[in-house]
């Protein structure tokens, strides 16, 4: 931990106070004593299991028609069908590649723009207002325009995901940098740190939590944009499977596709949380207790 990080941790007095009543986990997270780990895990597992059992019962007992809400076993059959035809195996890498490339380019652009706007008033004045305007446009409304601008190939799909991924990273990066305590920057100046050293030792460590939150948001948004993007001339991908199922009213496949998106969302969020822990090991957080 750098001297500045220690200083930052020291200025955060509420955290110092609560460490007396909470155990510090190895990861740096604070765990409450009121609930043990096992009951919490049980609680996590029981709720979805009960939900799935009720869902299956309502379907098999005919409380809800299969067309309205197919049961879990029907959805498993849909997965089996998609797997046997090879559609699911073909769709996943294509969809992930689209979302990944869009997220990397969009998130990278958002990061760059956010850093520059955060560090430079001139840059902020140059493009912050237009970006704030553009970010309020729902990206789904842009689908027809993207077809006109970028055609119907991969370009329009990736561009849509880029457009959706830029803003969460940009906003969080910009605000994370601007939110750094002025006193810490003054400490840097007092020690006659160069601008580069200030960025490396003060700005980057202190803005990193905000930046990573931006990337987490952007990862989720990229998956949302993927659904819209894959409605443009898709012949493979999860969006294509959903679109065809919607046209021919295969509710079971629609739900199967939605669940794939949900699992992808969870996985991506898990990866981003993991990154947070790796990149910010010094940062003490609490778990809500």
């Amino acid at each position, binding site marked *: 931990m750098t001297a500045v990080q220690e200083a930052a941790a020291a200025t955060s007095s509420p955290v110092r106070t609560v460490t007396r009543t909470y155990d510090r986990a190895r990861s740096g997270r604070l765990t409450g004593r009121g609930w043990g780990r096992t009951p919490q895990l049980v609680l996590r597992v029981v709720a979805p299991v009960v939900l799935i059992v009720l869902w299956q019962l309502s379907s098999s007992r005919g409380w809800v*028609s299969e*067309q*309205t809400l197919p049961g879990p076993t029907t959805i498993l059959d849909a997965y089996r*069908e998609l797997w046997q*035809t090879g559609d699911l195996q073909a769709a996943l890498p294509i969809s992930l590649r689209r979302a990944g*490339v869009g997220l990397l*380019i969009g998130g990278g*652009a958002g990061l*760059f*723009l956010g850093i*520059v706007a955060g560090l*430079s*008033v*001139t*840059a902020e004045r*140059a*493009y912050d207002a237009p970006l704030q305007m553009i970010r309020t446009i729902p990206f789904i409304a842009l689908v*027809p325009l993207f*077809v*006109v*601008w*970028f*055609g*119907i*190939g*991969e*370009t329009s799909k*990736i*561009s849509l995901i*880029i457009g959706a991924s830029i803003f969460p990273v940009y906003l969080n990066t910009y605000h994370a940098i601007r939110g750094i305590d002025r006193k810490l920057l003054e400490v840097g100046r007092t020690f006659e740190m160069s601008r580069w050293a200030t960025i490396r030792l003060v700005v980057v460590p202190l803005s990193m939590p905000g930046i990573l939150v931006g990337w987490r948001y952007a990862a989720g948004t990229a998956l949302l944009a993927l659904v819209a993007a894959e*409605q*443009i*001339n*898709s*012949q493979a991908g999860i969006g*294509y499977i959903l*679109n*065809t*199922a*919607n*046209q*021919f*009213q*295969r509710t079971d*496949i629609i739900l199967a596709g939605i669940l794939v998106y949900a699992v992808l969302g969870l996985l991506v969020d898990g990866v981003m949380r993991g990154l947070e822990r790796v990149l910010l090991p010094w940062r003490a957080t609490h778990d809500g207790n």
Partner: protein
Amino acid sequence: MKKLLISLLTAVLVTAGLTGCSAFGSEGDSGGKTKLTISYQDTAFPALIKASGVLDGADFDVEWVNLTGPAANLQALYSGAIDLGHMGDTSLTIEQANAKTEWTADNAPLEIVAGWRNPYSEEYSPLVTAVRTSAGIDDLSQAKGHTWGYNFGGYNHAQYLVSLVKAGLSEQDIKPTQFADGATSAAAFNNGEVDVYSGAHGAILSSLTSGDAKILLDDSDTDIPALNVWTARKDVLADDDKNAALKDFFSRMSGYWAWHDDHPDEVKDILKKQLKVDDARADFEFQVRRGQFQAFDDDLITREQAVAQSLFDGGAIAKLPDVGIGFDPRYNEVQKAVPDAGAPE
């Protein structure tokens, strides 16, 4: 000055990045061959055409594109992304009626160059008006006060408006329920959310076979041609190479229908694989996707004009277009197009 440079550098990098992205995934050329980019609203028909082999050995390449709904096809046509867009025969009528500049034979940007449908059959009519049996409606005039689902534009909308006229009702007499697309409208009907439905027959097949719904009118009752059509941009038709390729394409495609009829099992397997439909729906789709190209003769134009009149009278379009402007019969001969495929046998 330093800050200004940073800003300028940022702008340049963003522009370069976005421009670079636009090159991502751009399609290559066809090695000197003319390439036709042709859209269809699902992936089954391209797969069937490929299986039929009618395009094998052609001097042109075809890139198949999957665009759902007429709006996406029209956008892709206008942007030059495709050469032929797939839609219903009424879509261009609505496009023409909504155009800022009045279409003439000279300035019309788009033209329908091919239309097809299955021979008329009560069992396999593409377009129906149906009621939920639980609604207790035996005659459409009894639909008064009931919910009626349809989707805006296209021949589903025309079926709805003409059905109302046939029933002796107006929109004030019923509870019209407009949906964004045909699939959603059908889903609402299948789920019992609306009592009456005008739209695609295949989409409500499950309700019909289970006895939850029955058909009261089909497209022969409403005299709606219900054609699938391919629409081209005028500049594509004016391009000699594309025109020659399209001529050859349609000539070859005229041989597709016989292959379709002769290979029912192969066709149904492809339909099931591509569309993920069950056996009953595959049987239906096999039948409803049979057919021949339809000649763009005076009789068809008169029927299309009558549909436009119904859309105009029903308020779906603000002005009444001359629909003949949107039909170009230049390929009818090579298509071996037949008159009036939709007429009852």
